[in-house]
């Protein structure tokens, strides 16, 4: 089994993500510079957090139009897993891996704090080790994390159970106060049509060891590994 973490100019959570995958979970992981493209097959590609291209134009907009994203789209179209975290989520939305967009927070300030999330579906390669409705603790750190999509898209996401994570309070209630950025319906993580892509604003890699105050994020990565173990043809 082999994962890739793509490093763009301005990525800054790339090494944290590689560390969690390689040293905490034990998955062989390549750090791939965006100019090098995906030169081999991977079970999963992670687009990490950061500020690719200084968030110029719109967060994720420039990175989404780099040639390596054609490789990532091909990987996803072939059923490979893609996890976009924070800036990686913005890149994923900008490149059309999922519908909608993550834009300027409702209150125009950077939010950096622990939040609660409710796991809305366990029917995905990223959440299969959680319980449906489980409340987990991760952190957010973003200025452009407010999820926006047309009402028709939101209805479809709900109908197809493609909202994987919503911001909630510690009791699992979806409230305006618990929503750090004004996302529609508290949406924090969205699955692609075939459920093999998850983009999420919170940072699972920052909640993967006890010393960090939460290990809930690790189960996102462990879910991916569990999924890949079940699928035939894991990459060397």
């Amino acid at each position, binding site marked *: 089994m082999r994962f890739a973490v793509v490093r763009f100019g301005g990525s800054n959570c790339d090494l944290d993500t590689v560390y969690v995958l390689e040293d905490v979970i034990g998955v062989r992981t390549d750090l791939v510079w965006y100019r090098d493209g995906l030169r081999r097959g991977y079970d999963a590609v992670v687009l990490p957090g950061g500020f690719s291209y200084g968030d110029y*134009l719109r967060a994720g907009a420039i990175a989404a139009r780099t040639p390596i994203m054609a490789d990532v789209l091909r990987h996803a179209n072939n059923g490979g897993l893609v996890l976009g975290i924070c800036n990686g989520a913005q890149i994923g939305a900008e490149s059309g891996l999922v519908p909608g*967009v993550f834009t300027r927070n409702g209150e125009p300030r950077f939010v950096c704090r622990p939040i609660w999330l409710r796991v809305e579906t366990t029917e995905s390669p990223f959440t299969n080790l959680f319980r449906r409705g489980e409340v987990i603790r991760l952190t957010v750190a973003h200025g452009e994390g407010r999820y926006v999509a047309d009402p028709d898209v939101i209805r479809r996401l709900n109908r197809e159970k493609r909202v994987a994570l919503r911001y909630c309070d510690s009791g699992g209630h979806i409230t305006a106060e618990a929503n750090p950025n004004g996302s529609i319906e508290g949406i924090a993580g969205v699955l692609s049509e075939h459920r093999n892509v998850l983009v999420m604003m919170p940072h699972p890699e920052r909640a993967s060891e006890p010393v960090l105050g939460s290990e809930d994020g690790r189960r996102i990565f462990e879910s991916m590994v569990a999924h890949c173990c079940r699928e035939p043809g894991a990459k060397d």
Partner: protein
Amino acid sequence: MQYDVTITIALKEGMLDPEARAIRNSLDHLGIPTLSLFTARWFKIGLEAADRDDAAARAREICERVLANPVIHRYEIEVA
């Protein structure tokens, strides 16, 4: 022919504009009340094109492929 095109990218009608709200609040604090305020981004681009229609078509492509996100943005193009 060389053309200068100017492109304005703005939020679609009804979209929340947090920057505009912050700027209005600031103006209020300065004692300058406003009835409304919208933000937009403005680009000036030099293009080689066969004619004005061709320049406008290239500008549209630039908007749709890069400058605007159709989920939240609308755009206006002027060819000088």
